[in-house]
């Protein structure tokens, strides 16, 4: 187990380095500079370039950059909020994004579990079909479609919730984004749980438990659900990905001051450092979740670990 964890850790570190290099090189190639203002003379440009260290060779800047990144210093913003340290800009935004993301996961998992259990217990009835339709729609329809539909129906027509995010009323404002983001979670969790439950219910130990005469609720929760839940952990990976991409568009639709909207704005105004910082944070979160999922799964199901070690 130790060997497996160490191997996964090393790969993760290399991935982070690769991401840093990629971010750096790609942004080197970006068209335009942050100083596209025509009023600046060449000398003024040179002075500004020197001030921000943009005149040094690429490798030196890259080495400096890694050093700073590891300290958590992402530099200052060039254009969005001039000279504002990026770590200061990021902090409140990450909190907003993460809290909405967590709400979405929580809501989605609860609804997904309920749907999955109903679908498997009422296998091949209309309830099962409804659950299947919901899960297929949730997987295939992008979250911004749900977001737009919610904003129009609940926000504009029925005026139940504010369409644009209002920080003074964060709880009410985050209802619609949370629902829109949670659709994918609902779909994947219910779909996965349904097939796992069906498999578990076909197994011998459930037959044994039944023949011992235990109550239905105990059978479902203690014997069925507990075993069916184990593989559901694998959906965590795709889930995080969908939350990340989802957050970009959903934050744009509801004007949420989160990490996603910051990333999109920074891309549009060519604010190098902000783009790098946001992309880096997204990547680190992604890698961390993947690492945890892999290790957890290795602990829960040793077959996975052994199979990977063999290769």
């Amino acid at each position: 187990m130790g060997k497996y964890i160490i191997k996964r850790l090393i790969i993760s570190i290399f991935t982070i380095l690769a991401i840093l290099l990629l971010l750096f090189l790609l942004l080197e190639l970006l068209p335009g500079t942050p100083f596209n203002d025509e009023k600046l003379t060449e000398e003024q440009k040179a002075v500004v370039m020197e001030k921000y260290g943009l005149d040094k060779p690429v490798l030196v800047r890259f080495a400096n950059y890694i050093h700073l990144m590891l300290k958590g210093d992402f530099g200052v913003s060039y254009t969005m909020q001039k000279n504002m340290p990026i770590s200061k800009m990021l902090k409140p935004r990450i909190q907003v994004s993460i809290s909405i993301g967590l709400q979405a996961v929580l809501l989605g998992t609860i609804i997904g579990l309920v749907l999955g259990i109903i679908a498997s217990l009422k296998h091949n009835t209309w309830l099962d079909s409804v659950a299947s339709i919901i899960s297929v729609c949730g997987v295939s329809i992008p979250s911004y479609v749900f977001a737009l539909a919610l904003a129009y129906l609940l926000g504009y027509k029925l005026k139940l919730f504010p369409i644009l995010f209002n920080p003074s009323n964060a709880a009410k404002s985050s209802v619609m984004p949370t629902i829109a983001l949670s659709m994918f979670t609902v779909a994947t969790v219910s779909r996965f749980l349904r097939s796992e439950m069906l498999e578990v219910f076909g197994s011998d130990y459930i037959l044994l438990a039944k023949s011992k005469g235990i109550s239905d609720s105990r059978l479902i929760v203690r014997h069925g659900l507990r075993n069916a839940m184990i593989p559901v952990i694998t959906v965590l990976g795709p889930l995080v990905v969908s939350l990340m991409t989802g957050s970009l568009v959903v934050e744009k639709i509801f004007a949420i001051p989160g990490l996603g909207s910051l990333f999109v704005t920074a891309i549009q105004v060519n604010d190098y450092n902000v783009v790098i910082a946001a992309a880096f944070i997204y990547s680190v979160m992604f890698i961390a979740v993947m690492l945890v999922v892999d290790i957890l799964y290795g602990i829960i199901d040793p077959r996975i670990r052994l199979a990977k070690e063999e290769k």
Partner: protein
Amino acid sequence: MSLIFKEDDFAFANKRKGTNDTYDISKESFAKDVFTRFMKNKGAVISLVCIAIIIFMAIFAPYVNEHTYKSMIIEHASLPPKIPILEKLGICDGIIEGVDVYEKAGADGSYYLFGTDTLGRDLWTRTWVGTRVSLYIAGLAMLIDMIIGMSFGLISGFFGGKVDLVMQRFIEILSGIPNMIIVTLLVLVLKPGILSITVALLIKGWIGMSRVVRAQVLKLKEQEFILASETLGTSSANIILNEILPNILGQVIIMSMFSIPDAIFTESFLAFIGLGLQAPMASLGVLINDGFKSFLVFPYMVAIPTTVLAILMLSFNIMADGLRDAFDPKMKEM
């Protein structure tokens, strides 16, 4: 006490008259079998029909009226949909709150089936031209999966050892980088457009496929018929092409179908955050993004392209599910 059995004390259980002892083995070919199973799946067939209709519309629909995707008549801006037969029923008649906006705009007698956008461009034409982009992306995703993903998986799985080790570490690092980050940064460097979206898909679109193919190859490699081929001195290329490939083709087709909705989504996602095709080009994502800017006032502008996109993605997903069930009925409950 001893038992004495006579010959006719025993008879075959379940033996019916007129049957031989040999089993009745169906002689239907695998392809035909798959086809019959697929056709029995109602959802999958409906999806196939939907996709066929959308492809048909994407090819021919832009030519039914005189507008092109970029021609604009500024007086006709923001007209709601008006459809010849439905207008008599009081829906889609071009009247908003009692005012005939078509008459007001001087567009009496003309019909914009999907309405016009804020610049007076015909949304019917733009929607179907935009659908072409999504379909191009779909085809591209399949091709990338088939060519890059499959060869990567085949080589990695078949040769094993150091080759496999290097290739797998490469994939592990590559897959650790979120797709969204690669795609956005790449599109940023190469100007937004169809080329950069293509390149973005090339970088990571094939990883899932290569993993599935590799796992399949590893399984097949241990089987006797491969060993037999090797013993007979068949070259590696020959074994891969003639022995392994036909056996994994079903899996490959299924996987490539599943990657289509992902690719279509990636394009629309990029367009939605402003990194898609540039004006005056249209794609479904671009239309949704344009419509979003005024979607509270003119909801039809975003509703129509969104519906087409949703139907397209839903159909590809359900069809891929149907194909998987048809190829491998055992996996149905997965």
